[in-house]
């Protein structure tokens, strides 16, 4: 079987599995977020935190909940890392240095999971389990909560209430993420991923050197790492490490896990706004962009234009032999399209244009299908912008799902899509302006520039994958990337919630023949077009000096 055919089968089976699963999963999530009953453990949690689960919140109060919870999480995670030597299961590691602890805390709370540390030699088991793994669940649940609040804005009318953040957070964690992660972890253990508390096991390598092998609660963390589009690996090598991702079929499973919630949420959205086909249109936009992207990335990887890949007949550098080029390319594409950021191969070593695609994936704004929750709200914002520009062409004040897109709405939507490009471009520019940033690059010239551009793209879009090559554990990069992650996560969330508030206050305009239909292929094509032209093209000048300069001959 040729590599291409194998790649097509691999990707095709993923598409098929996602198509089958997105419906029941989306329906399940719909029931989770619209149900009125509280389970007993949930009641206990509400009582402990002192939340009245029936009381709904305004957008501002919802946003305050998001910010307060995240702030507390950052402080907790920071403290845990700084004090790990005094705590249990530290494996004898010292406290994490300040700038790295800040970076890591922000990184996990923002669902970015950028890792400037290497897991097995920095973090004890307690930090990994009570700190990082917990954030893997709740940061994903926060993203979903915000997305659901936006959907409620579309679904409701003449109200200022968007639901209860704490209820959404708890339900997302307990009823969606935990059960799926539990099952997935067991399957991963069956596949060969480790799950233990053993002390490091020292082995003699082939060359005669002695190497300590650290075990740990890997499978459990791996499952939610993918499911919650987190991407922070237990080991530095992330999903390339055989303890995290042992075989070709666990590789398939991990890709499936990281895509399933983002592709399921549009169904939930469709159910909540009372029109399944609207959800189908959103999922179609995501799928269109994703399929184009994975095709291009695989093509660039398999065509291997570079000197070395051509010489050896394959672009195998940085790729695990047990996965191969095509499956690695699919993983790379899925992880950059979903804001997961887990890697099973090294993007730095990809062909220039392959590397370019991983960046473009993120530059789309993490919407195809994007992170858990953040993908849906990002795509809905793009739909709002599309409706605004194109909707005028049908001769009416633009409206989406019966909600008029006026100056207030467009103000929030425009602010949303301003944030990430500004973080990416300003961050890269500052880094390239002096030795503080230039010093960290492994390569000179265009490839060095790509490393920095990739880092800020990944951080601002809350992806978390790295181009490798860049020495990111410096005070400058830890601080700057930490800020990019924080701004790139919370400012857009505030604008999303503000938009939701203003949508919910409106009535609903009934649909007529004169209304722009937002469920047809025509609209799907338009949203995809707007995403590419308005969002991705912004980065073309910067890309021209990085991967494009390298890749076009």
């Amino acid at each position, binding site marked *: 079987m040729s590599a291409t055919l194998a790649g097509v089968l691999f990707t095709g089976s993923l598409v098929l599995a996602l198509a089958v699963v997105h419906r029941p999963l989306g329906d399940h999530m719909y029931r989770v977020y619209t149900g009125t009953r509280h389970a007993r453990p949930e009641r206990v949690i509400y009582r402990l935190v002192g939340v009245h689960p029936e009381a709904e919140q305004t957008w501002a109060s919802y946003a305050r909940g998001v910010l307060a919870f995240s702030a507390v999480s950052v402080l907790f995670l920071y403290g845990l890392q700084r004090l790990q030597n005094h705590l249990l299961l530290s494996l004898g590691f010292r406290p994490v240095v300040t700038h790295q602890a800040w970076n890591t805390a922000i990184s996990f709370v923002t669902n970015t999971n950028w890792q400037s540390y290497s897991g097995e030699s920095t973090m004890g088991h307690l930090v990994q389990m009570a700190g990082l793994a917990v954030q893997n669940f709740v940061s994903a649940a926060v993203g979903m909560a915000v997305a659901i609040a936006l959907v409620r804005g579309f679904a409701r009318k003449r109200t200022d209430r968007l639901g209860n953040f704490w209820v959404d957070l708890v339900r997302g964690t307990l009823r969606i993420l935990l059960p799926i992660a539990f099952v997935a972890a067991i399957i991963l253990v069956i596949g060969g991923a480790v799950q233990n508390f053993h002390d490091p096991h020292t082995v003699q390598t082939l060359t005669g050197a002695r190497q300590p092998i650290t075990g740990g609660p890997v499978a459990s963390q791996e499952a939610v790492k993918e499911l919650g589009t987190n991407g922070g690996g237990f080991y530095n090598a992330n999903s390339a490490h055989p303890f995290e991702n042992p075989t070709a079929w666990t590789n398939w499973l991990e890709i499936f896990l990281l895509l399933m919630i983002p592709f399921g949420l549009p169904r939930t959205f469709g159910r909540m706004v009372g029109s399944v086909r609207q959800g189908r249109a959103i999922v179609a936009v995501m799928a269109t962009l994703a399929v184009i992207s994975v095709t291009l990335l695989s093509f660039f990887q398999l065509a291997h234009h570079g000197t070395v890949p051509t010489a050896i007949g394959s672009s195998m550098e940085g790729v695990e032999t047990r996965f191969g080029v095509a499956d690695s390319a699919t993983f790379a594409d899925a992880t950059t399209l979903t804001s997961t950021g887990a890697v099973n191969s090294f993007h730095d070593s990809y062909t220039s244009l392959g590397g370019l695609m991983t960046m473009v994936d993120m530059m789309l704004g993490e919407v195809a299908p994007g992170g858990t929750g953040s993908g849906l709200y990002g795509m809905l914002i793009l739909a709002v*912008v599309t409706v*605004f*520009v*194109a*909707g*005028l*062409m*049908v*001769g*009416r*004040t633009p409206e989406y799902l*019966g909600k008029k*897109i*006026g*100056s207030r*709405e*467009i*103000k929030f939507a*425009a*602010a949303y*899509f*301003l944030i990430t*490009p*500004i973080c990416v*471009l300003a961050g*890269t*520019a*500052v880094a*390239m*302006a002096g030795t503080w940033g*230039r010093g960290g690059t492994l390569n000179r*010239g*265009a490839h*060095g*520039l790509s490393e920095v551009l990739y880092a800020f793209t990944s951080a601002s879009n809350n992806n978390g994958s790295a181009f490798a090559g860049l020495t990111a554990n410096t005070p400058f990069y830890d601080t700057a990337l930490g800020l990019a992650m924080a701004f790139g996560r919370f400012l857009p969330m505030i604008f999303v919630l503000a938009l939701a508030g203003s949508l919910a206050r409106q009535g609903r*305009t*009934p649909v*007529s*023949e*004169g*209304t*722009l239909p937002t469920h*047809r292929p*025509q609209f799907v094509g*338009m949203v995809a*077009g707007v995403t590419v*032209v*308005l969002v991705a*093209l*912004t*980065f*073309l*000048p*910067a890309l*021209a*000096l990085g991967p*494009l*300069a390298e*890749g076009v*001959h």
Partner: protein
Amino acid sequence: MSVRLAEAPRTAPDAPAPPGGRVQGGLLDPGQLLRSLPDAVRKLDPRTMWRNPVMFIVEIGAVWSTVLAVSRPSWFSWLIVAWLWLTVTFANLAEAVAEGRGKAQADSLRRAKTDTTARRLVGWAPGGPVVEEPVPAPALRQGDHVIVEAGQIIPGDGDVVEGIASVDESAITGESAPVIRESGGDRSAVTGGTKVLSDRIIVKITQRPGESFIDRMIALVEGANRQKTPNEIALNILLASLTIIFVMAVATLQPLAIFAKANEPGVPDSLALNAHGVTGIVMVSLLVCLIPTTIGALLSAIGIAGMDRLVQRNVLAMSGRAVEAAGDVDTLLLDKTGTITLGDRQAAEFIPIDGVTEQELADAAQLASLADETPEGRSIVVFAKTAYGLRERSPGELAHATWIRFTAQTRMSGVDLDDGPGGTRHLRKGAAAAVLTWVLDHGGLPETDVAGVVDGISAAGGTPLVVGEVVREAGTDRARLLGVIHLKDVVKAGMRERFAEMRRMGIRTVMITGDNPLTARAIADEAGVDDFLAEARPEDKMALIKREQEGGRLVAMTGDGTNDAPALAQADVGVAMNTGTSAAKEAGNMVDLDSNPTKLIEIVEIGKQLLITRGALTTFSIANDIAKYFAIIPAMFAALYPGLDRLNVMRLHSPQSAVLSAVIFNAVIIVALIPLALRGVKYRPSSASKLLSRNLCVYGLGGVVAPFIGIKFVDLLVQFLPGMS
């Protein structure tokens, strides 16, 4: 129709609405561009420019490049500087041209505003003594009474409280035929500046000083206090945020370019890139090409031109918001009479009774109606002529005929004919009961058929008139009924098609009528409206509007009477007829000077066209960016990374010519699109989906392709300029 409009420099304002009422705009006169140039230059003042964030950025860029060009002059930099200034000027030109058209109209309106002396009445009360004093018109206050006689100008807006007069309103409406204004009822409003042609009226002034209808018209057509409409504000926000993104994209490129240049020390400096990064001139060029200048330049012109298109149709919109709302209308409330049907009922059928031929009945009916001057009577004469070829006979033509005129008391008209010796023939036509009684009185037998036919017509919403005959020979009367005339409301030609179009556009039409539900249904079915409100009282109308609005729909209606005022105020688009009361004119947000209720449909189309034009040009503007990237990015960096020359798909002559061509295309496209902005994108009533496909194809796809061709073409020309290699 148009005295006033004929003075304004534009084409065929008095052409009737073309079949189907397609929205058209005036054409652009090239001379107008030249005339507006001084205005355009005046608008370069930064205090004016900052209101338009996109073009303000271009102006700042132009100033900055001028400084750079002065310090390090070259052919290339001066050419770029010149075209950057032209870009800003072209944007101002668009606005100036749009405003210029309004100014011309305002000037002719001002001529109507002559200073008159008013004859104010002191302590006047209805029926009281008339004591008058002369005061200058501007000194009149609300509530003053003035007297105006034939030949005098009405000094201010108000309502007639006593008397009746014919008034020449051509100064306002352009319509030269005089109109009747009388106290009470719905035709009491008079406008300052119009002239009383006959009789004498007492007018109660309703305007505040300096706020007359003409003053407001002048302000409106001049766009003096033009405020941005909600959608315009929203679009401006989007354009501003796009501009910010591109400013960021261009500004942050500098450190990257410096880094890249430093890594390739062997590459010589060029006009685009040196050790200090991308040169200022090229940086500004890239920015100006990327930010949405096309729509930024034309946005306000589109808005002004939209209002102007309404004025051309003799509709005054009190706010741009109302014009935008017109595009959003979901429900149209249309009065039956005058809008859907011709004003009066007309003969549509002759139904003879056994033994009488249709021809006989038509002949009798026509004869009996010759002395009937009511519109119904005239329609019978005309119908007999057109449908049965019966020549219209004038009353004087027949000898020995006695004409019986129609009166409200007898409810009959007719003729007594002298048929020769001893014989006379009497014909009567009129209300069924009256004619029946007349026939019975003359010894005729009641025909049961007739009652059936009469009831049938009534049930179907028509009006039955009966024709009877009495032949008197040798002292004996032979009386009989000849048949029935079916009068009905005649739906105006083309209305059915119009409503079908409305339906395709997603607009629901509701007919409002005072008729009973049966009649209303018959007409509604015939006209093809979606719904009707029968036996409508003003409060029913109001309730209907509120009900529609609660469902989230926008409602448009027309009205003229005082009791329409609350509904006009409640409706999202309320078009008051100029013939109506001042209360109605105050309450509505538009006034139709022609008082043609059908125009509501055109207003909706203009509103839609305005929004479509904005959307189309925004799409076009954004789509243009793709080609510009392909022109400028290789020009900037191909020297550094030769591979990037592959992006130069247009094979432009040199980096300098590429940058200059992009800047020139960017400027010229603004001028090229001014006519489109002023005229509006062609609008065909159809479903949203079809409209979108078409516009997306023309302006989206066209927007991607056009600049590739345009920039290449400009490049072929500018490569011969100095400094291009």
